[in-house]
């Protein structure tokens, strides 16, 4: 049984709301996957962005939803694909450079999290992880409760291990992409995701 810091989990949830993170609690990873697919089903089709004058990358903007799961293991990927393909979704693990016009959903699993800033840490040395989590309109992260630590100093060792080895590209993500550059009005979704969902997994 993994060690869950209940206080940290509560704090994480409390800090997530003000930074526009949507949290759902699920019993296991499979349910987190099902949640991501449900989110995908309900959303408007991806609004494709031209990558050059009048030109789009892959994806036709029709009903074929694209979901990328860049950091799932082979086994997890299979589960995800089995759940998603019957819905008619395109489920990918790589090839994101061909989708620069955008995809519907990215589903990732987290490496660690910091409660007091509602931050999820995702190791992103893989280009696919970096691209998927930026190109998707909605990013769904599966985060285990036991991965949540109270403050950033509590993940220092975790970070040290990753970076000591290197190369690494470690991402702190604490909400959907946002800007306040025009008249200081907070606006969500400037370059990256329009929504960030976290599926909090028991254990």
């Amino acid at each position, binding site marked *: 049984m993994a060690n869950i810091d209940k206080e940290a989990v509560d704090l994480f949830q409390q800090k997530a709301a003000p930074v526009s993170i949507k949290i759902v609690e699920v019993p296991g990873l499979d349910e987190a996957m099902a949640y991501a697919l449900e989110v995908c089903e309900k959303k408007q089709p991806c609004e494709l962005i031209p990558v*050059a004058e009048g030109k789009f990358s892959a994806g036709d903007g029709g009903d074929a939803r694209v979901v990328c799961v860049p950091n799932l293991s082979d086994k997890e990927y299979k589960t995800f694909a089995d759940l998603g393909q019957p819905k008619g979704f395109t489920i990918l693990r790589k090839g994101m450079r061909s989708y620069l016009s955008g995809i519907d959903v990215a589903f990732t699993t987290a490496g660690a999290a910091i409660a007091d800033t509602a931050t999820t840490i995702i190791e992103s040395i893989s280009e696919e992880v970096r691209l998927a989590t930026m190109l998707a309109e909605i990013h769904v992260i599966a985060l285990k409760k036991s991965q949540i630590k109270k403050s950033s100093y509590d993940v220092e060792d975790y970070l040290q291990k990753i970076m000591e080895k290197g190369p690494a590209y470690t991402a702190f993500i604490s909400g959907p992409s946002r800007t306040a550059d025009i*008249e200081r009005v907070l606006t969500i979704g400037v370059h990256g995701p329009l929504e960030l969902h976290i599926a909090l997994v028991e254990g």
Partner: protein
Amino acid sequence: MQSAKSMNEYHGEIQESLDNSFLRQALDKFAVAYKANRLTIFADINEKELIKEIADAKDESLDKLEDLYVQFKAEAEKRGVQVHRADTAAQANEIICKIAAENNCKRIIKSKSMTAEEIHLNHALEGEGLEVAETDLGEWIIQLRHEGPTHMVMPAIHLSKGQVADTFSDETGKKQESDISLLVKVARRELRAKFANADMGISGANFLIADTGTVGICTNEGNGRLTSTLPRVHVAVAGIDKLTPNIHDALRVIKVLPRSATAQAITTYVSWMTGSAEHSLNPDKRKIMHVVLVDNGRTAMLKDELCRSALRCVRCGACANVCPVYRLVGGHKMGYVYIGAIGLILTYFFHGRENARNLVQNCINCEACKDACSAGIDLPAIIHEIRARLVEEEGAPLSSTLLSTVLENRKLFHSLLRFGKFAQRPATGGTKFIRHLPEVFMKGQGFRALPAITAKPFRDRWAEIKRILPTEGKLRVGIFAGCAQDFIYPEQLEAAVKVLSANGCILDFPLEQSCCGLPVRMMGERKAAESTAIRNIRAFDPARFDYIVTLCASCASYMKNTYTEVLEHHNMRTEAQQYATRVRDFSSFVTDVLGLTEENFTKSGETVCYHSACHLCRGLGVVKQPRYLINAAAEYKPAPEEDVCCGFGGSYSMKFPEISGQLLDMKLTNLEATGASTLVADCPGCVMQLRGGEEKRGNKLKVEHIAELLARQLK
């Protein structure tokens, strides 16, 4: 970017800002919202402790910067990154242009980097025929408009959505609506194509970790991630001051930076790039990554004992966010590339005297920046130091030389003040204000009435006053008058004498005392600052006094906090220390030393509002005491923004009357709105400014020193 060639031109530029009603409104709203949000976001951590830790850690890093550089270079290169060091801006630009050429890059995307702005990198790249697009929304907007940033964190804060819509309409060739969420969408679309086609990405860095060779960047938009992911080549450009020993230090910076910058607990994205990451388009599947470390005067600054602490700066922009002058004129007029208090300083070091000369004059010394700085930098002190250097290098302006000469000679100074009384007599028309002065003295001063010199200064009244004072008591207290009270408002001192002598103080007023020296220090007149300090220290023999009490917040904070520094290299250092420990402001002396409470006063029904003098609340940290005392003697009516500067700032109000007048107006509007009948302050300078303003506005408030209120209500 402030570009005036002369002070006159600079005044012209400032007036333009003051007349820009959109800018004024935007900055006003921001200033008020920022302060409230900042309080909330710092509520769950110990702000002062964190800032102290940052300052100490930064100092330590600065001490071993060369070692950190060597270590960072080795660690980053081990992980596939090439590290360069550039001594000058030109060298840095050359290195980056060369990287572009060697890798056959044509199209460049950039995420925000102040260092790139500092070295005018875009200019250099475009000179090589490269196409450069900023991707931070604010930066992109001002790039399209060919403007410089007006804020380090929110570069386009000076623009309205209408202006942005016009700019985007021009750029896209389509009419764009002035709807913010639609405009953000336009940016999303337009910039995606630029990301997709760029072959080189340039970013800044918020920290560089020596231990692991990691480059860290913080963004909200996520453009930093795309910039460092999509193109084949990534160049991070940063000042060498961004080197930090380990991950812990970086985590600490992340705690303070977003909180101070935009009152966020953390930026949406923090990217830690340790070595070159995967890249599918390069033959070896690795990104080509370079780090360019820019010196551009930083190692020279390191050796500069008095100014090196400015290198602690984490570029949060808080010093602009809280600056009352910035709030009025905006970043184009209060900065060159860097903006706000740190902008005044870095312009001098990075962009030269020519560009700094006017700028460094435009600080009212309210210490709001020092109080908010993420890295605990004493910004106003460094600004004074730079003024002093400019004076030493280039000679002082006539007015400042005159003042120094006069202040170095007490008798001359005091007889001039007395003479002023005769000179103005016909002009004041029998009231306490100067009615007409020749135009040369009154330029721009129409916003307030100036007070008249008293017929009989305090020093001439003292012998008589002293005769009836008690000679026994528990504390021996020396009164330090300061010029304003001695020669303009002796009645304030008499009120204080009444309160103090009735509560166990044996008072004395050494006649050899003179001006505290703050005015000459502000002008950068080092020698005059020393000699005035010495005169006062000699006047108050430490053996004869337990305390030196002054009713002037500016004199008190200057003498207490700065005398030892002014005389640091003088053999009277120890005496300066003794003197400084004895100095107290009136309010905190009354409550904390004499222990007076509401028991000692008759509470009247008079409604009283309060202006919290800069040098009292920030300079000395005296916040609660005066409010407690007001409430003991009358009905205290709190006002919004009580601790914002009234615009006096000594000679500042003469130099920048247009700004001083605006600050005064905002102040009085807030205070009048309380509906109080009386306004008190802890500083004769503030009283002078506020009373002068009220005289012009029809005297809705009676303005006095807190001592006068207390004397009236003393039981």
